[in-house]
């Protein structure tokens, strides 16, 4: 589904805050226990899970906006993109 960049921007801010809180000391303290899930230490499993969730949500968000292009200035820059690939030596 195609959304507006504003829609995505709001969600990325929220996602950032979620991520920042999830790896902050209070949450780490909750999971810093001497126990195991699937043979993995709890804290280790927790951090990688949070990490994977963040990446998955980012991947979802990245598909929601169609970027209108790699614009430069609206007015063609002086000596803009045309000059970027002059013949090179060697």
């Amino acid at each position, binding site marked *: 589904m195609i959304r507006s*960049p504003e829609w*995505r*921007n709001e969600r*990325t*801010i929220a*996602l*950032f805050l979620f*991520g*920042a809180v999830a*790896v*902050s*000391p209070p949450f*780490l*303290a909750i999971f*810093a*226990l*001497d126990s*195991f899930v*699937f*043979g*993995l*230490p*709890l*804290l*280790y499993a927790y*951090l*990688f899970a949070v*990490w*994977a969730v*963040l*990446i*998955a949500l*980012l*991947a979802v*968000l*990245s598909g929601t*906006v169609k*970027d209108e*292009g*790699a*614009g*430069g*200035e*609206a*007015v*063609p*820059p*002086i*000596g803009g993109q*045309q*000059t*970027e*690939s*002059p*013949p*090179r*030596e*060697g």
Partner: protein
Amino acid sequence: MTAMLQPWMIVAAGFGYLCVLFAVAYWGDKRALERRSLVASPYIYALSIAVYCTAWTFYGSVGRAAASGIDFLPIYLGPTLVAILWWHLLRKILRISKNNRITSIADFVATRYGKSQLLGGLVTVIAMIVITPYIALQLKGVSTSFNVLLQYPRIVMPSQLGSASVFEDTALYVALVMAAFSILYGTRHIDATEKHEGMVAAVAFESIIKLIAFLAVGVFVTYGIFNGFGDIFARVAERPELAERLTGVGAGGYGGWVTLTVLSMAAILFLPRQFQVTVVENVDERHLDKAVWLFPLYLLLINIFVLPIAFGGLLYFPPGTVDGDTFVLTLPMAEGQGALALFAFIGGLSAATAMVIVETIALSTMVSNDLVMPILLRIGWLRLTERGDLTGLLIAIRRGSILLVLLMGYLYFHFIGGTYALVSIGLLSFAAVAQFAPAIVGGIYWKRATRPGALAGLAAGFAVWVYTLLLPSFAQSGWLPMSFLSDGPFGLALLKPYALFGLAGFDHLSHSLFWSMLANVGLYVGVSLLTRQSAIERIQATRFVEVFRQTGAPVAEPRWRGFGVAVRDLQDLAARFVGRDRAEQNFAVYARARGLDLGKARIADAGLVTFTERLLAGAIGGASARVMIATAVKGEGVGIDEVMEILDEASQVIEYSRELEVKSRELEAATAELRAAYERLQELDRLKDEFLTTVTHELRTPLTSIRSFSEILFDNPDLETAERQRYLGIVIKESERLTRLINQVLDLAKIEAGQFDWQIGDVDVREIVNDAVAATGQLFRDRDVSVAVAMPERVPLVRSDRDQLMQVAVNLLSNAVKFSEPGRGRVEVGVAFRDGEIAVSVRDNGPGIPLEHQRVIFEKFHQVGNSLTAKPPGSGLGLTICQRIVEHLGGRIWVESRPGEGATFTFTVPVEASAPAARAVV
């Protein structure tokens, strides 16, 4: 392959790998030339950003994890968090950099704060000093792994081998080889845009190699030596001295964790090499969309096996015999897996060379553009401009700076870094790179930030870093007396570098970060608020902060008044730095784009001067380009700053007056609307007065006649019976008229209040029309008006209120009769079924209705003809009631008329509406 690994094999493998890399880079450059860019892909872009993972990640993370557990992880969680914000932060930096042809982070800072050479130079010096330990880390990683691998199959730590002299030191040769390699990659030519597509391709390739190598070792250790994750962690849990590393967050505690996260967040944006690959080398902003999640995914993958390898090593080797930083290599070696160990070595080499190449190329650009060239231009620019082609000089400066950076790295490694763990060395660099954050992040979001503010903040933050981290590292290596650390300088305990002003209880890194950021941000904000921006600073600030608002009329780039500069002179100037052919070609492209003939135009206009400045900026940096142009533009009667200031203020005034214009236009529109509404209200008020008069009049007429006839009857009791009957008949008729009028007023009031009692049922419209014609038959006969009805055979039944529709039809018919001329009058009634509704029309051939009355004829209290002729009979409510009824029943009513040709009233009844819409009655 369990045979001996001969030294020549290791060396050959290393060199062979470097040759493959070079081939990839060569291929990438070739494809760029052919305009079939290899790097125009979000995947390559994301992989090139993974240059973030260096020998630190490849060897150091495992060492760190072995020493203190999970606290290697914030270094990768921080960048993941920042990646979430890339759509805000990095997109803005990318756009700004493209618009301004930014070539490095120093260029970025200098350009933002008024193209300040001083600031550019400061950033360059800081970057060089800061990166030195980081380069040392890579040298250490490569030379250690090489020396360890040499001993195969024995496991011997380099520290046990005894110290070698400088010329037998592997690290020196590693440094020299890497320098040669970087020079070959990055400085073969001077380009107007500082893009190195070949280098990016090679870095992306290296990212793949190091990931595969690390995963291969991880899988071997986890599943080859042990029986999976669970097995390793279960064994660790049985060893109490190791088990505690599974539950805590490491030696730094939670404070250290936060510090590491913050530092890595700054590092991923502002390390010179990260800036190089993410910003300078970016070919398309849209690549960001995928890189945003691909890069964190890469980080996640390369970290999965860090803990298993670290704990695997701790379980495998007797405590204290093998350095954790070498587990990636020593575990396969100990198991006799020579090939895997060699592959791991190649992976580590990949990680280190990628970092060194990009970092040194980025630094060399900064050194030549923002440090050496400005100085050369300043002290002897006359001599410089006399020289023909300066591209050779530029390249020489860059090559020299690459060699210098690597040698500094080697010296740091040789004299200081040898005893430190890899990660500790790297963190030293991270802490200093964070000093760039306020000036850059502030610079793109806060317009008011000034050059003195940025200078003060950067200098202070850097000084605090030197004092609280760099000098102590010298002291611990014996370069400074240890009393510097334990007692403070000159015995001043308050100035102890690890406990400045008595602040104790934090780890060294957090302690340093706190004080340096306090000084940096405090001075940056404070000095910015106390100083004023020059004109060019103000313009640059606006261009940076409002980069996305530059639609329509972009904020003007500071322009030169090109008084009397010959086009030829400008082209010569550009040719000195970017080469004759390239300058010629760029000028030709410029001329073509603007439809100019440079051969004819002898004197350059302001646009061409600015264009040349930008062209130079790509080669020698914004600040130097400005100085060069300033010397070339002759006859500057008024300083550029004054001109810009005047222009800036003038444009602000224009902006204000434009805003005022818009405001006043809005006000005018609002006033007009208000006036229209007021006029309408007045009209309604007038109509209401008229209506009251009419109603009163209409009530009084029958009342008067009732009263007078009643009085006659009362006064003359002996009246004749026939006479009496006639009078009583009049009284009854007038009473009926009175009742009808009152009923109409009441009906209207009820309909409008929504309290009317509607009787909805199945209705045949034809029947209604017939009944209505029949009911008004006497009227037609009385006035000698003919009536004709035309109806289809049958029409659908509708759900509606029969009596009310009947009332509408009767009303229209009696109106038609009223306005028809006796004798010649002719009324036609038509019924038609179309578009899901039944339309009933009543046409007369009377005088018609003037256009201005058609608009208001359905309004309450309105009567046609007040002023025309005699007042027509009726209350002025009939049509209003008709309209309310028809609209309530879901239809419409309207009139078509041309004066002198009669009028046609039409109303409709919807068919498909099973029940009339419960529409609010207006």
